[in-house]
């Protein structure tokens, strides 16, 4: 691994630079890392794959030795289903291949391209990256809200947002037309034109900028109200569900004094398929080993997003899930999982610390089978499995 690669080893990067020769991309790396810390340079396919699975980076910058090599690599990643999430891709190429780069972007293979050899305009690269991140953050947020709150949106507020959005688009169009008209306007002589330009620069343009800014802020405020309103609705709904789920908030340790059932249902004596969702690899490995040694079929994943993707395709008998995870926490992962038709009653055991009682209570309302205080013990973990088996059997 070269020096530059060691410098950019962010665990959960938002931006990854995929290249063959790190040394040739020193300038590019410096520009990107000065703009975003969550950045990583990758050269090996296995590392690229692992990082994409673990972190789902928002922006992929491809800088292989040729444009065709970059396309090939991107195609492979797509074909393997690794890029099945909102992301931006940027092509870096040599000046001699800029025409090909342009054509790729026209064909929507890449969102943008940048000539890095020779590198003249580092500010243009900054701009490309800035815009890509901006688009990704917005896209991610939109998907998140839609998936998470689907079916629970207050109709009047939804209408208000839609109206405001339409108003925003109209107003932006009006402002843009006004700008064009002002730009095209000319005085009857040079003095008048100069005066008009001065007026535009000092008064009209700042005023239009201010108007645009205020519009953007209004939309943001409305969006935030929507999010807050949805959260309070979710909490209310959760409290109602909690009344009908007396066991959901019970600790596994409460079962230590349980008497073993005399006639075990068939499901209890079988090994089951378990998913472990935990971002910490050490704890993930430990839990997995305990379960594998007990004979269960275990699949361990590092994030809620990966878990949801897998759960849509395959059936599992139960889940162990961490609360605090990057991107999507345990609560929101559970909300999404409960929307999958075959996962409505899937037993979920929360892995968390004792200090998060309020969060666990909120989470429990989505239907937790038990919760385990980290680091816990082998005995508690296996008891949670037994409890899940009983839930499956009933």
């Amino acid at each position, binding site marked *: 691994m070269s020096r530059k690669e060691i410098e950019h080893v962010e665990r959960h990067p938002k931006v990854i630079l995929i290249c063959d020769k790190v040394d040739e991309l020193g300038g590019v790396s410096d520009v990107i890392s000065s703009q975003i*810390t969550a950045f990583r340079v990758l050269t090996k396919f296995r590392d690229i794959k692992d990082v994409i699975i673990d972190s789902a980076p928002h922006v992929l910058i491809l800088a292989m030795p040729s444009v065709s090599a970059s396309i090939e690599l991107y195609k492979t990643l797509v074909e393997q289903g690794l890029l099945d999430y909102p992301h931006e891709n940027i092509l870096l190429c040599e000046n001699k291949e800029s025409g090909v780069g342009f054509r790729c972007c026209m064909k929507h293979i890449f969102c943008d391209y940048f000539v890095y050899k020779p590198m003249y305009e580092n500010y243009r690269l900054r701009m490309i990256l800035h815009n890509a991140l901006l688009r990704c953050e917005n896209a991610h947020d939109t998907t998140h809200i839609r998936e998470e709150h689907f079916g629970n949106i207050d109709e009047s507020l939804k209408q208000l947002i839609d109206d405001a959005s339409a108003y925003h688009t109209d107003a932006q169009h009006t402002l843009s037309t006004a700008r064009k008209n002002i730009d095209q306007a000319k005085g009857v002589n040079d003095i008048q034109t100069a005066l008009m330009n001065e007026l535009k620069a000092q008064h009209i343009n700042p005023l239009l900028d201010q108007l645009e800014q205020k519009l953007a802020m209004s939309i943001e405020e409305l969006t935030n109200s929507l999010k807050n309103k949805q959260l309070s609705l979710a909490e209310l709904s959760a409290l109602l569900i909690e009344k009908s789920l007396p066991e959901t908030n019970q600790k596994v340790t409460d079962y230590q004094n349980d008497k073993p059932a005399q006639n075990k249902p068939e499901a209890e004596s079988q090994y089951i398929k378990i998913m472990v969702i935990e*971002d910490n690899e*050490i704890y993930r490995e430990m839990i997995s*080993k305990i379960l594998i040694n007990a004979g269960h079929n275990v699949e361990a994943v590092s994030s809620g997003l990966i878990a949801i993707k897998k759960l849509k395709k395959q059936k599992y008998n139960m889940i162990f899930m961490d609360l605090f995870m990057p991107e999507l926490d345990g609560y929101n992962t559970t909300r999404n999982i409960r929307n999958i038709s075959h996962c409505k009653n899937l037993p979920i055991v929360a892995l968390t610390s004792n*200090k998060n009682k309020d969060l666990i209570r909120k989470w429990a309302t989505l239907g937790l089978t038990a919760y385990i205080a980290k*680091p816990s013990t*082998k005995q508690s973990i296996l008891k949670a499995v037994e409890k899940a088996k009983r839930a499956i059997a009933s």
Partner: protein
Amino acid sequence: MHNKELSDLKTINQQVMIDLIGDDKAEIAHFQQQFLRQAKTSLQHIAQLYRQEQFNKIKDEAHFLKTSAKAIGAELCAYHLQTLEHASLAQDKVKCKQHIHNLSNELKQVYLSASG
């Protein structure tokens, strides 16, 4: 661990891992080494985030490492990470520095304990 006094906390409480994964010494050593590698990277990251005054990210990183520390029974490390979480949540730069320093020292003790 939460109910324990600070003076009761150990650099490595062997019983934690025995209760969790059993008493296979090779496996215990494997996880301890894995923790030390993870802690080294994490500590460097925390130091970088401290210089950039990114307190929220310090909190996340400390929480992340705390899970591993608890899992291998590094009780004092977990304690220092918990205090670092609190300090970063309060955006208290002076306390963060102190806790990062304590954590760094404690990690050296874990290394010595795991090597010995």
